[in-house]
């Protein structure tokens, strides 16, 4: 037997014991002195404490952002703004390893993923949008599109740095300033990003970072911003939409999903199995566009499932900082509880549960990769977003039935199609009601490619030429 020795990442970033709010270019404590702890989900150890922004801090930040937008960032030429964004992108690349380790520590995701995906893709978003800053007149959104002003942004904990990049890069490129609230459990890389903005000499007030929980987010939504951009759960997205209805504030939402990954009988099976694994187990399944419903043609279901289980057995679950870890820790005790509750419901409703026999660490928040077979459309695990490493497997008989089942959800963020027949890909993509349809691949992202949902998965696009529209007055 060929066992891999532990291969821990040796770089350790400088993590401070305490972080403040980043307002108007400076770190400062909360007006009411509140703070909270951030925990390493793989060990449950406290990593640092951080100030928690209240309504007064939100007001100050929005005012600072307004001054910066009106006096400096808005009037600045696109070419100059582009220089700052290029500088940020290069600094992110230079500090890539530190950011990767910090993200892994704070979030629980494996270093392999932060190193090869999160951080490089975040840098790519800044490079890409730096290039747009002086070419906005050619984006097909009018001859002289104007910025919206001050943007309030609220991002989730599943891709803390990458979601920050998706939000901040286009907003800044278009001439807006931002007040961003990172998720309560994962503020670290946003705060390191604030330090990076200082290093890049970004004018004060252009980027403001306000750590906090739901209350901070609500205060930001209620504040005097011109637009809210939110990524997170459908329930919170709906509440935001309600609360700003009737105001002048604009809104884009990137919400939940329950994506169907459709495997036809003529798919390249081994590669489809890889796509299924990548679709649901990438980032512990903490992905809004995760392929959480596998729809496999009944005639090949047994073969696909046998191969899938063999493959899942080889996944390495454990220390996120080990370079060979495939699946890291669940981000929080709360999320772990939710995953466990939904999987219990799956078993209770009669689906058959399967998990590989792998050891889990004693401390921290962990969940084995899980495959449910015999899942029916009516079960909760087929309808509700689990946001964890849990796959629900359903079967279909004909292509029409596959599409009908795939679309039979209030969500519409993403979908996958696996077939070696090109015409079937086009046929399916035309009928799937999802913002993104991947063909013979899954979970691929690029700054140049717009991403966003239909139906209850939200509205607005991020990335690409289309993504600029969310930050311009067109």
């Amino acid at each position, binding site marked *: 037997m060929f066992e891999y020795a532990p291969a821990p990442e040796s770089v350790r970033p400088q993590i401070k014991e305490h972080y403040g709010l980043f307002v108007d270019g400076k770190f400062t404590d909360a007006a009411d002195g509140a703070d909270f702890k951030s925990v390493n989900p793989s060990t449950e150890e406290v990593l640092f404490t951080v100030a928690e922004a209240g309504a007064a801090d939100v007001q100050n930040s929005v005012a600072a952002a307004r001054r910066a937008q009106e006096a400096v960032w808005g009037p600045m030429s696109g070419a100059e703004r582009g220089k700052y964004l290029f500088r940020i992108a290069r600094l992110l690349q230079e500090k890539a390893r530190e950011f990767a380790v910090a993200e892994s520590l704070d979030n629980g995701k494996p270093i392999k993923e932060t190193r090869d995906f999160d951080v490089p893709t975040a840098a790519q978003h800044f490079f890409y949008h730096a290039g747009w800053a002086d070419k906005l007149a050619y984006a097909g959104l009018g001859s002289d599109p104007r910025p919206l002003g001050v943007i309030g942004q609220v991002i989730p904990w599943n891709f803390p740095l990458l979601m920050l990049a998706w939000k901040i890069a286009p907003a800044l490129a278009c001439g807006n300033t931002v007040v961003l609230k990172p998720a309560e459990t994962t503020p670290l890389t946003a705060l390191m990003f604030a330090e990076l903005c200082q290093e890049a000499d970004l004018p004060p007030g252009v980027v403001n970072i306000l750590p906090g929980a739901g209350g901070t987010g609500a205060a930001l939504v209620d504040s005097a911003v011109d637009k809210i951009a939110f990524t997170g759960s459908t329930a919170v997205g709906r509440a935001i939409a309600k609360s700003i209805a009737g105001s002048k504030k604009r809104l884009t939402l990137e919400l939940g999903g329950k994506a169907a990954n459709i495997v036809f009988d003529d798919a390249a099976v081994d590669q489809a199995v*890889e796509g299924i694994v990548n679709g649901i187990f990438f980032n512990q399944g903490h992905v809004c566009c995760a392929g959480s419903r596998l729809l496999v043609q009944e005639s090949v279901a047994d073969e696909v499932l046998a191969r899938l289980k063999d493959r899942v057995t080889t996944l390495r679950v454990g220390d996120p900082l080990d370079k060979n870890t495939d699946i890291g820790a669940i981000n929080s005790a709360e999320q772990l509880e939710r995953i466990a509750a939904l999987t219990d419901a799956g078993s209770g409703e009669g689906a058959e549960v399967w998990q590989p026999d792998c050891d889990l660490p004693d401390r921290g928040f962990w969940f084995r990769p899980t495959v449910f077979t015999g899942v029916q459309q009516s079960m909760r695990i087929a309808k509700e977003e689990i946001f964890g490493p849990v796959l629900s497997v359903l079967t279909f008989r004909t292509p029409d039935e596959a599409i009908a089942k795939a679309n039979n959800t209030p969500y519409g963020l993403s979908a996958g199609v696996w077939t070696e027949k090109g015409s079937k890909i086009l046929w399916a993509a035309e009928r799937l009601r999802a913002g993104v349809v991947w063909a013979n691949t899954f979970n691929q992202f690029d700054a140049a490619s717009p991403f966003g949902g239909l139906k209850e998965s939200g509205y607005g696009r991020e990335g690409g030429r289309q993504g600029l529209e969310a930050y311009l007055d067109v």
Partner: protein
Amino acid sequence: MGSILSGAEAASLVRALPGVDAVGLEARAAGLATRSVKAESKAKAIDLAISMIDLTTLEGADTPGKVRSLAAKALRPDGDAPSTAAVCVYPSMVPVAAEALKGSTVKVASVATGFPAGQVPLDVRLADTEAAVRAGADEIDMVISRGAFLAGDLERVFHEIKAVKAASGEARLKVILETGELVTYDDVRRASWLAMYAGADFIKTSTGKVGVNATLPVTLLMMQAVRDYRALTGVQVGVKPAGGIRNTKDAIKYLVCVNEVLGDPWLSNEWFRFGASSLLNDLLMQRQKLKTGHYSGPDYVTVD
């Protein structure tokens, strides 16, 4: 073991195989290549890799002296390092190798069947094979008729492999697909299955004589084929990437693939081989580095 299928049956089964998605296959190989193998697991992997080498010389300039030198290296590569799996030579050099390796665990492998192109009449290829076995070869590395395969004559390729298998007698038969000439992954998969249906004991990527030799994605695909063949028939077939694997880092990537795609049953030189010559010295240098903590240099391993 002879095949129970007719040529027409084998050809039709092979033609019905599902396709290979090139992007997905290459992504999977690249993913496996990121595994970090350190410390004691690296030491074990290096010794395992050494024990899996078919130490090879296939030159027009091969002489008995050259082959004896290679055989000595195969037997005792360096200090307490394990012996290699085999020495691989042309048929004319088999008697020399057999004499030098007599009584050892190191096998004599001979290329045959008009290596490397195979563009000679079948009876000549069979005679080539029989001569190598008579001279003491334990293993035969044959080449398939890529021309016939690419012309679509799968039945002919099937019958030729079957005939060479029969001519090999007790010797284990490695079937070289020459994947660099088949080019597409779909054809590599078809050729792998055709060879296995015809009775191959091993499927091997390359001769080392064309532009593109073993690659990780191609070898991964062949591993999936032997895995699936065993699941279907119960018969285990070995895999041998050959050509282009020159350093320890690359060799370990292949072992990681064996480990995660095939697992324990294939993790020995009975079922996995490296066709290589310069790889051995790099493995030995890395082995010295792990033992002493510093790099020595090429003068501290032998030139053979």
